[in-house]
């Protein structure tokens, strides 16, 4: 996608910057991944007996695929509200460093904290990646409007995908409903594997997959938390041991 040069007069309108941000969703393959993910979440929510309004509200207000899947699958498998809340909250910690690293890219001396609330809400892995790609081409004083447009475009698209996935799961044959449900583990496995930058991330991914079946044997009701904390801590230990070996 071609944006006007940084000094172009077209950038004077914040509305136009918002519209450009929104149309930027058509220029990235991540949009397709997001669409597939939310198609899968819609189908998952249907098969776990949540209403369509519940599903769409979770997309608009939670706006974090992993948290939504954790919420749907833990509540669906009979976890308590507290157990679900803990699992969701641990999965959401990664949003903290993302918000911390994204906001300085669009802050100006005149920016008030309240101007950044919507951007902070829209921040998730897709937006975080796209900020680094697009913002160098956007003049600083229009970046908030641009990212709000991009983020709102992504939410809008995800709501549509959610609705389609939900309705397809209700009406399709078992085979195709199963295929849509399968989008979730595939899309998340590969997008997480792609985001593994350090050894610790890759080890955590592999251990998390391998330890979950073992953790279910304990039958504590906190299976995902147990395998996650144990797997993640071992991965961190590997990272530390390697850092020591190098130093």
């Amino acid at each position: 996608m071609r944006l006007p040069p940084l000094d172009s007069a077209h950038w004077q309108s914040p509305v136009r910057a918002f519209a450009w941000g929104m149309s930027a969703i058509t220029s990235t393959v991540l949009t397709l991944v997001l669409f597939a993910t939310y198609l899968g979440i819609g189908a998952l929510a249907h098969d776990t007996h949540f209403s369509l309004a519940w599903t769409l509200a979770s997309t608009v207000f939670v706006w974090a695929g992993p948290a939504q899947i954790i919420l749907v699958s833990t509540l669906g498998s009979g976890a308590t509200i507290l157990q679900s809340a803990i699992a969701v909250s641990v999965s959401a910690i990664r949003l903290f460093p993302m918000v911390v690293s994204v906001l300085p890219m669009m802050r100006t001396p005149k920016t008030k904290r309240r101007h950044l609330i919507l951007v902070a809400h829209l921040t998730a892995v897709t937006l975080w990646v796209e900020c680094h790609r697009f913002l160098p081409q956007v003049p600083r004083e229009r970046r908030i409007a641009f990212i709000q447009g991009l983020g709102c475009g992504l939410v809008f698209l995800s709501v549509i995908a959610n609705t389609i996935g939900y309705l397809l799961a209700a009406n399709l044959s078992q085979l195709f409903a199963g295929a849509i449900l399968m989008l979730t583990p595939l899309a998340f496995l590969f997008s997480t594997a792609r985001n593994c930058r350090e050894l610790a991330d890759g080890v955590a991914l592999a251990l998390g997959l391998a330890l979950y079946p073992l953790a279910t044997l304990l039958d504590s009701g906190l299976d995902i938390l147990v395998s996650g904390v144990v797997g993640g801590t071992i991965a961190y230990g590997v990272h530390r041991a390697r850092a020591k070996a190098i130093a």
Partner: protein
Amino acid sequence: MSSFIGDWHALVVLFVAGVIPNQIWRMLGLWFGGGLDEGSELLVWVRAVATAILAGVIAQILVQPPGALASVPDGLRYGAVVVGFAVFLATKRSIFAGVACGEIVMVAGKWWLG
């Protein structure tokens, strides 16, 4: 309309168990984000735990599949993931190619098994 909205209790649970525990981290980032080093050791551990939790959720969907996915035999689900992952690696980490091939293996396998 009532089937669209469903049960109000579930919407309350959505906010208590989903929206608030998730949103709190974004708002903390907005309020206190200034002085944190992105490469700090604490954040490496947090990211590793978060990744392993997400991996656990992926495993849960595969091992104890919900709804229609349960009609697909275990071996076929695992096989589809393995093939998809091999394609993902072979295509320089293309998420799209990995997902597409995993899906094709599962649908073709299920169709062939009847």
